[in-house]
């Protein structure tokens, strides 16, 4: 399955979705002008991935900042991943945050409460 790799920019996050090298990461800043346009390829990749998921996938979030529209898309991503167990796969989310950034920590805790997948909060 082809990898989706996007370099991070001033307003869009770095995306690494690479089954072959077992690397899955969303990091940096997310404040794109149009979140739907930016995240569509990510959602498409995940749909494809879910057709035959790995036994174990670890998806790391290392976000410095994300705007409210991104917050919605991140929820969409996490909710989409909930179906992984139906296909016999497993997923663990690693939500990295700066321990001084209580908002980022709280955001992770809120997501963890909302979705049924394994969710780990990782202070950096």
């Amino acid at each position: 399955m082809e990898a989706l790799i996007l370099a991070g920019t001033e307003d869009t996050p770095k995306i690494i979705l690479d089954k072959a090298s077992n690397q899955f990461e969303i990091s940096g800043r997310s404040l794109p002008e149009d979140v739907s346009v930016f995240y569509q390829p990510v959602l498409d990749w995940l749909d494809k991935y879910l057709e035959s998921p790995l036994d174990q996938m670890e998806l790391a979030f290392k976000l410095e900042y994300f705007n409210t529209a991104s917050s919605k898309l991140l929820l969409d991503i996490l909710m989409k991943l909930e179906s992984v167990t139906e296909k016999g796969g497993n997923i663990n989310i690693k939500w990295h945050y700066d321990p001084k950034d209580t908002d980022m920590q709280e955001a992770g805790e809120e997501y963890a409460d909302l979705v049924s997948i394994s969710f780990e909060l990782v202070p950096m």
Partner: protein
Amino acid sequence: MTIANFPLSFINEINDTMIKSNLIMSYVGDFSQEITKTVLSMTERNFDAEGVGEGVKKKVFNVMVESLQNICKHQYSGEETEGTSSIFTIGATDLHYSVISGNVIHNDKIDAVQSRIDQINSLDADGLKALYKEVRLKSTISEVGGAGLGFIDMARKSGNKLEYRFDTINNELSFFTLLAKISNKE
């Protein structure tokens, strides 16, 4: 009114007014994602140079992004070109930062905006958290790419009531000003 029609001393007056109002930066014009990025970058560098605390910096940055992107998404974009530019400005006192936006909107949008802000202002931190989660779950991304969460987030991050006003321009349009105050204490 062009710069040729009034004395150059007007610029001195504007500068004075800004200083007296504690406005540390201001941008007037049409807003875009590029402008948003530039304003953020300028303010970040400014704050780094001033040694503003990380916590306060992050909160101000959060509120700024939502404010700037709201202007982009909701600023008037009709046929009138005179007097329809938007403004973004930051005020700073010893006690707090004020993130202020101003833009022209259609009068038929006023009720919805006003009732939304009034609702948000009536909630405490827990109420805002619950509202944020509810709207985020139920909403879909709008035509202009918004999720309907900006005001709520501004209220949450600033920790204060949002202040606003509508000034009528004509029977189609008004000028909407929004202020979010963030405490300067870490």
